[in-house]
């Protein structure tokens, strides 16, 4: 068995930049992943990978260069490809690799106030600093200067029950002139912890992947399992693919319900939120009933799924779908027929298509800005049997992101019904491989926010040498910072909720 959805192009370091620019243009793909690998221990050598999505060819294209031993710098590509910028900052802080020509190398995750310069966690020879050594750095925010301009700092602890992040608004009067998000507050060293896993194919490792981002548990475990399955050459049974697709859609439904309610509450319209939170709770209760876990933990395993969707569970699921479609129609009517709600949502927080393309926005937010991007379309798998329809809106405002959610829920309900109808009784898990294999591969899943990507490299003993995770939030936080410009500060919560980005997925 061979997977044919990723290719590697090896280039010399001096050709890396031009090759990346060429592919970026040719494939019209943003930088999807861009990361370094320490080829040590024993030798001081790094390789750098840059992944693009080839929509037409339905595959991932990765440009790879091996830096000469002892060399810890390379030519930056972010002056020409903006979607590469954050990845280069990350490589600088995590590996100490210098992207020459990148003007902004401030740290993302390892905050200057608590982490000493010169300690690079993802290097193989990394030793953490002693407790007594205190960092004394500080972060430099972008300054906006001029008459009447003031700054509003918000966070990291916010008013709601929500993750931590710091937002710095510069405003003159009401409209926001600049917004800078400083994140990384939930950094836990996830990628390094994956390297400590005794076995890449074990359920322990899958279970750890489920704990990275709690609202995308299933997208994460699916992407993780898929990466390992590709490396080990395991082909999962069709029934398991259907079950994974059903759970992925259920995860989408409860999160979309949550966000739709959140958007209503952020304009002070609390009743639809109460209604939406009941829908979410019902979906979580269904998850528990058919999978044993409210957040779909423990379902995925390398090679398939742990639990079948049998006759009685199937019936529970189908009954649930009937009820939920009615509820959603009611919720939709409530929101779209309210003039005061529409007044707040329409034309608020516009992210133009051009901006979204330049920033490399992905997933739901990209589709709301007119970009037809969905991994379920590019790599359909079982979705082709259900005739998947991509949902897209053109306006790029809060209302467009709301509409994408409302329409995606309808589509998800339809898809699950189709999957349940089509899937035939069969095995739900492939035979376990006896010997682990060394190799590397991309695992991916279109989560409710967008593509969740894992790139994993294993060694012959079955351990993980490198695990790179890219959450859609990593791309999309920048989109939020642009979408709020020109809007008033009181509309920020609404804009924020319309993206609903992950702190833990971004910070890792």
């Amino acid at each position, binding site marked *: 068995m061979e997977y044919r959805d990723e290719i590697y192009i090896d280039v010399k370091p001096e050709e890396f930049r031009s090759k990346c620019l060429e592919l970026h243009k040719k494939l019209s793909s943003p930088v999807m992943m861009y990361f370094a690998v320490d080829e040590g221990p024993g030798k001081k050598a790094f390789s750098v990978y840059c992944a693009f999505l080839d929509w037409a060819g339905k595959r991932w294209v990765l440009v790879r260069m091996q830096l000469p031993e002892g060399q810890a710098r390379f030519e930056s590509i972010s002056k020409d490809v903006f979607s590469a910028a954050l990845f280069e900052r990350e490589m600088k802080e995590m590996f100490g690799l210098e992207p020459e020509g990148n003007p902004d190398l401030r740290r993302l995750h390892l905050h200057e106030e608590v982490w000493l310069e010169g300690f690079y966690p993802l290097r193989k020879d990394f030793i953490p600093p002693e407790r007594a050594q205190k960092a004394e750095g500080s972060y430099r925010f972008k300054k906006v200067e001029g008459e009447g301009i003031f700054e509003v700092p918000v966070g990291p602890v916010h008013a709601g029950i929500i993750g931590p992040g710091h937002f710095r608004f510069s405003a003159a009067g009401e409209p926001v002139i600049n917004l800078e998000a400083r994140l990384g507050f939930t950094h836990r060293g996830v990628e390094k912890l994956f390297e400590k896993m005794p076995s890449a194919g074990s359920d322990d490792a899958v279970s750890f992947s489920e704990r990275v*981002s709690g609202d995308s548990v299933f997208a994460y475990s699916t992407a993780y399992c898929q990466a390992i399955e590709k490396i080990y050459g395991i082909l999962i049974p069709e029934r398991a693919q259907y079950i994974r697709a059903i759970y992925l859609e259920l995860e989408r439904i409860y999160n979309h319900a949550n966000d739709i309610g959140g958007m209503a509450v952020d304009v002070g319209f609390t009743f639809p939120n109460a209604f939406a939170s009941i829908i979410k709770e019902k979906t979580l209760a269904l998850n528990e009933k058919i999978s044993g876990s409210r957040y779909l933990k423990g379902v995925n395993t390398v090679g398939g799924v742990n639990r079948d969707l049998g006759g009685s569970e199937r019936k529970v699921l189908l009954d649930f779908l009937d009820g939920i479609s009615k509820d959603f129609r009611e919720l939709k009517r409530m929101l779209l027929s309210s003039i005061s709600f529409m007044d707040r949502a329409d034309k608020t927080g516009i992210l133009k298509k051009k901006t979204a393309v330049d920033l490399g926005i992905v997933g739901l937010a990209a589709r709301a800005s007119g970009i037809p991007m969905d991994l379920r379309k590019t790599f359909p798998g079982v979705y082709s049997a259900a005739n998947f329809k991509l949902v897209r809106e053109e306006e790029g405002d809060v209302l467009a992101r709301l509409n994408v959610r409302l329409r995606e829920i309808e589509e998800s309900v339809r898809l699950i019904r189709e999957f349940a109808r089509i899937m035939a009784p069969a095995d739900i898990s492939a035979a376990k491989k006896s010997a682990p294999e060394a190799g590397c591969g991309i695992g991916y899943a279109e989560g409710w926010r967008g593509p969740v990507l894992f790139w994993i490299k294993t060694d012959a003993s079955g351990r993980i040498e490198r695990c790179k995770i890219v959450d859609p939030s990593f791309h999309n936080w920048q989109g939020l910072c642009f979408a709020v410009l020109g809007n008033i500060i009181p509309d920020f919560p609404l804009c924020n909720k319309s993206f609903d980005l992950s702190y833990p997925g971004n910070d890792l």
Partner: protein
Amino acid sequence: MKNILKNRIMKGVVTEKLGEDLKAHIFKKFGRSFHIREVDTGSCNGCESEIIATTNPIYDIQRFGIDFVASPRHADALLVTGPVSKNMAMALRKTYDAMPEPKFVITLGDCALDGGAFKGSYYVVGGVKEVLPVDLHIPGCPPSPLTIIKSLLAFLDT
């Protein structure tokens, strides 16, 4: 709408008895209400999702006198999730310092106890107890809304 109301009423029965007990305790000990400020120190947001679920119309913890407040100044207790990322240690401390006495610290979720799945990482402090004195721990990954309500009841009972 009808089935939602039906569901709401049926579920309500589950929490009603529990909630009445809770309400009685809160009336006695805190003069009608118990206000909680939540801080995420690096959780995966699974715990947040379940805490928010306690406020939905099915569990509706607010009707018993427990509420989640926007500022530590208004809080009787600090509810902390996550393994405490190094970046959050100071913010957690400052939030605690901003609370009026008497104050309690409640940790929620396996990470907050000792780092959980993230134990041993170079960037986690490893549990809230390394930073603040902890009065109650609610275990689970994440604990369900009913577990949260039950644990709060047991705590207020002591």
